[in-house]
C-alpha cells in the first residue's frame, strides 16, 4: 500500500503510531521527571488527522498564548517535532530547575534557554524511542523558540505541509504535573514519506 495522504492511514497503522507516541512520550516524561525530580503524568496519546482550524480550537482558540518549541527531524525520517507548552508549564520548569519563582517572559534569556534545554532533552528521548523501535537513523535539530498566539505558531507546520495535504497528522501527548495542572503537548508531524518508511520498518506497509 502506498501512502499519499495522511487520510490514507488505516486503523492498524494508526494504532502503530499511537504506540510509537506512547513509547516516545513515556521516554520523554521519564526524562522530564528526572530533570524536575518530581512525578510527571502523561495521558494516552491521541493520534488525529486534523485540519488546522480544529487543532487550534482544541488548544483553546487561535489567540491562546503558548510557548512553541520547534525541532526538525532529518536522516531516514523527515518531519518536525513541536512542543506546545502553557506558560504555567514553563513557570514550573523554571521554578524547579533554576529556583526562579517569578513569571516567565520571552525576554528572559536564562528562562528561554532552560525551557529550550528541557524541550531538547524531551525531544531526544522521544526520537530515540522511535529510532530503536523502527531501526531507523534519525537526527534532530536544536530547538527554536517562540511565545505567541497558538494559531500563529501552528501556521508554521501547516504551511510547510500545505503542499502535501490539507490535514496535519498530530501525534499528541499531554504531559501533566499533578501539583500544578500545567499541561503541555507534543506534536510529532512526520512527512508522508517518513510515515511510509516507519510503516515499512514495522512491517505494516
Amino acid at each position, binding site marked *: 500500500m502506498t501512502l499519499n495522504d495522511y487520510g490514507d492511514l488505516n486503523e492498524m497503522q494508526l494504532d502503530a503510531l499511537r504506540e510509537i507516541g506512547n513509547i516516545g512520550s513515556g521516554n520523554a516524561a521519564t526524562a522530564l521527571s528526572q530533570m524536575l525530580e518530581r512525578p510527571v503524568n502523561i495521558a494516552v496519546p491521541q493520534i488525529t488527522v486534523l485540519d*488546522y482550524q480544529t487543532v*487550534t480550537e482544541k488548544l483553546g482558540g487561535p489567540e491562546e498564548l503558548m510557548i512553541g518549541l*520547534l525541532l*526538525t527531524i532529518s536522516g531516514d525520517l523527515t518531519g518536525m517535532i513541536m512542543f506546545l507548552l502553557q506558560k504555567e508549564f514553563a513557570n514550573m520548569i523554571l521554578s524547579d530547575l533554576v529556583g526562579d519563582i517569578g513569571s516567565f517572559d520571552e525576554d528572559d534569556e536564562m528562562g528561554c534557554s532552560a525551557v529550550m534545554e528541557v524541550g531538547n532533552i524531551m525531544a531526544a528521548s522521544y526520537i530515540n524511542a522511535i529510532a530503536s523501535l523502527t531501526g531507523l537513523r534519525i537526527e534532530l535539530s536544536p530547538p527554536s523558540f517562540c511565545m*505567541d498566539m497558538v494559531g500563529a505558531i501552528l501556521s508554521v507546520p501547516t*504551511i510547510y505541509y500545505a503542499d502535501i495535504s490539507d490535514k496535519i497528522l498530530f501525534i499528541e501527548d499531554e504531559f501533566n504535573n499533578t501539583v500544578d495542572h500545567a499541561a503541555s503537548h507534543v506534536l510529532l508531524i512526520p512527512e508522508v514519506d517518513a510515515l511510509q518508511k516507519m510503516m515499512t520498518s514495522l512491517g505494516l506497509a
Partner: protein
Amino acid sequence: MNKMIKVGISEFNIAKNGEVLVTYALGSCVGICLYDARTKVAGLAHIMLPSSEGFSVLGDQEGKFADTAIRGLLRLMAREGALQSRLTAKIAGGAQMFAGVSNSSLSNIGLRNVTAVKAELMKHRIPIVAEDTGKNYGRTQYFYSLDGKMTIKSAIKGEWHY
C-alpha cells in the same frame, strides 16, 4: 457592535454596511484587506502560500494561494459593486515565527508570501496604502467596512491602527 465576520486560514470574504472582518493569529500567512471607499465594500483574504503554480487548485483551495485568493476576492467584491480601479490594499502578517530554523523553505516563507502578495496586487494595479509585515510575532487583523481602517493586535506587543 457591528456584525463580525470571521475569515479562517485559506479563506476570503467580504463585508459591507459597517460589518467588520476579522482573521485570527496570522503567523507566516498574510492577510490582505481590500477596500472601495465609494461603495464601502471591504474584503479580506488569509493566504498561506505564495503561488498556485504547480498545483491543481480545487474550488475550496482557492483561498490558499496569493494569486487565486486575490482573484477570488476581487470577483466577490465586484459582485457587490466595488470597482477595481478604486480599490486600495492594507496587508499584514508574513512573520518569521521561529528564528534560526535551518530549513530554508521553512525560514523564509513569510517573506515569500509578502513578496508574492505585493507582486499580485501590483499586477491588478491596486496600491498598498498600509503594511504591517515581517518581524517575528503573530497578528490578529480587523478590517472595518465603515471606513477601511485596519487594526492589528499582537498577543504580547499591544495593538495598532492603520
